[in-house]
């Protein structure tokens, strides 16, 4: 690897992979910055410049994507799902879910269709709610 940008990208990708993998755990900025070998302030700034959103937002979308999946495919209650995907407060979960998906978890559940089986990595990438301005237009990804 050559340039500083490439080195930085690769380390940030490692931190992003950790969010994809360990979304249900407590993942704070210090933990993630350590994975990326940078200071906390630098981590947030460069992550955003590299991936287009803050690490906090990325983690929220990963958790909401998992919640959408569980709402579609299980009978677990909304509060069970909230805890299972890493949120600690039902209020924050509901607010974040509405903000990203455009409707409440229960409303989404009623509307959601069955996702056809594809390799999990693609399902993960395709059904992750986008935060790039489309929220509210589509809930099913």
């Amino acid at each position, binding site marked *: *690897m*050559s*340039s500083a*940008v*490439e*080195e930085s*990208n*690769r380390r*940030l*990708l*490692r931190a*992003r*992979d950790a969010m*994809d*993998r360990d979304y249900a755990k407590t993942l704070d900025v210090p933990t993630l910055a350590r994975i990326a070998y940078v200071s906390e302030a630098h981590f947030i700034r460069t992550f955003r410049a*590299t*991936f287009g959103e803050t690490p906090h937002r990325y983690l929220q979308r990963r958790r909401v994507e998992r919640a959408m*999946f*569980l709402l*579609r*495919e*299980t*009978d677990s209650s909304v509060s069970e799902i909230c805890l299972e995907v890493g949120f600690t407060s039902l209020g924050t979960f509901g607010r974040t879910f509405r903000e990203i998906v455009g409707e409440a978890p229960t409303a989404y559940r009623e509307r959601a269709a*069955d996702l*056809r*089986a594809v*390799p*999990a*990595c693609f*399902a993960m990438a395709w059904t992750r709610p986008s935060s790039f301005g489309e929220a509210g237009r589509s809930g099913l990804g």
Partner: protein
Amino acid sequence: MLKQITHSQVYVLDQDEALDFYVGKLGLEVNTDADLGFMRWLTVNVPGDPDHQLLLEKPGPPAHDEATAEQIRELVTKGAMGMAGILTVDDIQKTYKELLAKGVEFTEEPTERFYGTDCGLRDPFGNYLRIGEPKEGPIEVPDPAQLAENT
């Protein structure tokens, strides 16, 4: 009539480092390593399966101007170039342990799914790969509740 896919390609930042990983760690073997003058044609394949080669291509001139090559390298390192491939093994737990001991960077440990047990990993540059142990026999797509238990 098309017959088969014989080559697929992945961008690597350094071909020697790519060999260390794809051959030295993953256990693929070199199929062709030829200096064509304008490029080093470097392909690897699964031992015993030379009919599907993976081209380890370094972005750069003459195929790409330096600015374009730089963009490709940046996309590779941020994991945005897609998947290099899905490989299969007989015993995924054994392979996982062996590769982990060699320092391979896993994004996901082996997880059981309706189609088999598989895991996710990255090459040194950021490319994504999956290795799995497919389930034998006809695969039944599970009902949604079963699907949820193991994703």
